[in-house]
């Protein structure tokens, strides 16, 4: 469903969600959404997608093997640097 006149607000919807717009513009967008169901639904679905990405993006800590390999590699680097240092 396409709505004429909504495009301008749509271009600002990310900043609106982040609270990065001036207060007057936020009021105008809110007033528009009060009267425009598709825009309201659109913003709601965008918020849901962002929340889903955030929730799924919370990866656990690095796997133990990757951690152990990093520590081994750092130990090797330290040893190599010590060898190179002039006495």
């Amino acid at each position, binding site marked *: *469903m*396409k*709505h004429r006149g*909504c*495009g301008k607000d*749509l*271009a600002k*919807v*990310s*900043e609106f969600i*982040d609270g*990065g717009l001036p207060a007057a513009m936020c009021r105008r967008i809110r007033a528009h959404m009060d009267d425009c169901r*598709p*825009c309201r*639904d*659109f913003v*709601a*679905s*965008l918020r*849901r*997608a*962002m*929340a*889903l*990405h*955030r*929730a*799924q*993006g*919370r*990866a656990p*800590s*690095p*796997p133990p093997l*990757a*951690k152990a*390999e*990093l*520590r081994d*590699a*750092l*130990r090797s*680097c*330290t040893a190599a*640097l*010590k060898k190179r*240092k002039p006495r």
Partner: protein
Amino acid sequence: MPESESALISRSREGDPAAFESLVRRYEDRIYRLAKNVCAGAPAEADDVYQETFLTAFKKLRTFRGGSGLGTWLYRIASNLCFMRLRSNKRRPFVAALDLPSGEGLRLPADSIPTPEQAAGKRELAEAVARALKLLPVDYRLVLTLRDVEGLSNEETAKVLKVSVAAVKSRLHRGRLFMRERLAALSEGAA
């Protein structure tokens, strides 16, 4: 009282491995999370980016000026490594749908102990997010992850990626629209 970051950096520069280990512990979850998200669906790449980030930082710590914060510097190293590893996808074109669909069909999982069906649903959602991210160019994945997962500001994200704030805002907006479109469509398709 935990040792200050600047003291740990100084000791690390002097070759104290325990100090650098403390810095790794402070930042490794964040760096791994960024790598995991940006290297969507390629866990081996994510592990490599995580490890290489700290090895590079260890070797180049003397060049770190301290102006932008260690976290920003580490994010920058990790971002550059992601670019290098995934650059074949960098120029993949994509179009974010800019019409106004109904927004129905996307549901978040409940925060309770999942049944096997719910667990499978969560896994499917995780896979759907990874698939959607994978379709985005790397610079969009980086902006989306730094902003929406890591919680950096537009200004901090711009500093990490060495781009303008306007470029961050533009990629964030288009990336979010793309994710919304992909995730809503997948959810509707499964219904």
